[in-house]
């Protein structure tokens, strides 16, 4: 059987060898294990032996020639049966050469870039927090004033500290702008409006206030707060946040209540667990909240905890408003001015105190039908103020 005798690999790191001299000539017989030739390796001369009994037919490589591992050296006529045909060796992996010589350009050590513009040093945590709050870096850099910006600075800025310096107000305007732009960009809003007969609620508040001192006086808006909070516990998809591609329902209703800042700007700190608190408690908390906003002592947690927001321009005499959702929330309720308005009941024309409620909600989470059910629930709750 005609077989090729290949240069064997004698070491894991042996790439090839130079044939120095043949120990057998064509026609010679050779026994298994008998040396056939001597080769020169990096470690010295080594005899390589035949794996089989047989006869040398032809020498394929002249002494002095360098050949890679696996290269045919001779042809043998091998006696059948003694030949141990092992499956061919796996393709020889390209020998790993030493570190490729670096291209000339790479060897040049990079010249130090000219002193980088002194960018504001900002911690990773602050950077992430700013993103969460929709604060543009430009606003922060202005407000940073050259020092290191940490989470605390970001939250302080985002809490619209009272409009002290003008650049703080500019920064705040930039913040609101950025947040609203992001909301418009990312959230598919749908809008609903609904007129509500506020008369029963108004009468209830008037009777309540008449029986209480000015300190315990209620504002009509607090009833709306409670009604909205309760409705959000009954209809799915309005209290919670949307991030990482999906809606995370909140187990509770922390109702952000929009409070206009003196001199411009807006903040909506949360009345925590509004759905569980009675109206007088909500009034006391809301009153304290406004006082803290006026004095600029907002705690950062307070203003990021809101799971739904209620905004009202009633005081400014606007009938209907179409608000923008405050991300990462998924809905916002607008309350217009409560005004005397013609109202038809049992085909009779009367005059009622009418409130126009509006809802802006995230179409990724809910659709018009449940939005409508939500507003009607608020209206039904306001129709029975005793139950709030």
């Amino acid at each position: 059987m005609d077989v090729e005798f290949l240069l064997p690999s004698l070491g894991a790191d042996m790439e090839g060898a130079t044939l120095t001299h043949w120990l057998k000539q064509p026609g010679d017989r050779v026994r298994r294990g008998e040396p056939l030739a001597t080769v020169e390796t990096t470690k010295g001369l080594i005899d390589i032996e035949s794996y089989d009994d047989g006869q040398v037919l032809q020498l394929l490589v002249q002494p002095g020639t360098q050949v890679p591992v696996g290269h045919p050296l001779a042809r043998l006529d091998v006696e059948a049966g003694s030949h141990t045909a092992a499956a061919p060796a796996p393709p020889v992996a390209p020998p790993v050469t030493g570190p490729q010589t670096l291209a000339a350009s790479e060897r040049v050590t990079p010249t130090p870039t000219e002193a980088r513009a002194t960018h504001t040093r900002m911690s990773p945590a602050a950077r992430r927090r700013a993103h969460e709050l929709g604060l543009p870096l430009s606003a922060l850099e202005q407000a940073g004033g050259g020092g290191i910006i940490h989470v605390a600075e970001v939250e302080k800025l985002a809490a619209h500290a009272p409009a002290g310096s003008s650049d703080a107000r500019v920064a705040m305007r930039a913040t609101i702008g950025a947040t609203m732009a992001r909301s418009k960009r990312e959230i598919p809003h749908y809008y609903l409006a609904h007129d509500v007969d506020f008369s029963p609620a108004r009468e209830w508040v008037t009777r309540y206030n008449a029986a209480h001192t000015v300190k315990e006086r209620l504002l009509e808006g607090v009833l709306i707060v409670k009604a909205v909070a309760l409705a959000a516990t009954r209809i799915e998809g309005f209290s919670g946040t949307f991030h990482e591609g999906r809606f995370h329902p909140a187990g509770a209703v922390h109702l952000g209540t929009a409070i206009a800042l003196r001199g411009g700007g807006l903040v909506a700190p949360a009345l925590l667990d509004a759905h569980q608190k009675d109206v007088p408690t909500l009034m006391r908390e809301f009153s304290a909240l406004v006082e803290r906003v006026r004095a600029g002592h907002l705690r950062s947690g307070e203003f990021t905890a809101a799971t739904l927001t209620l905004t009202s321009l009633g005081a400014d005499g606007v009938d209907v408003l179409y608000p923008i959702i405050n991300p990462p929330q998924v809905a916002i309720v607008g309350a217009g001015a409560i005004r005397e308005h013609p109202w038809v009941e049992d085909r009779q024309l009367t005059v009622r105190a009418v409130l126009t409620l509006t809802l802006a909600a995230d179409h990724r989470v809910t659709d018009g039908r449940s939005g409508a059910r939500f507003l009607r629930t608020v209206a039904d709750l306001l129709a029975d103020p005793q139950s709030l």
Partner: protein
Amino acid sequence: MDRNQIHTQLLALLTGVAPDIDPDSVDPVRNLRDQFDFDSMDALHFAVAVSETFGIEIAETDAAALANLQSAEHFVEQRLLSKEHT
């Protein structure tokens, strides 16, 4: 308590509710809500402050009397006088 004392006291209460108000520049007859961008909570806080400072009860219907500084002064003065006589 005479009219002047009531005046200065009321100014102090106003800046308590809205720290950014400049007491000297208050127009006595102009509506406070428009002049200082008061919302309904600010108005309530002012009413409560007046009630506690002067020890007089302010019903919801009296709210209109506190609409501007001058009428507020007059309202407080009257209430204090009627209190002394009863």
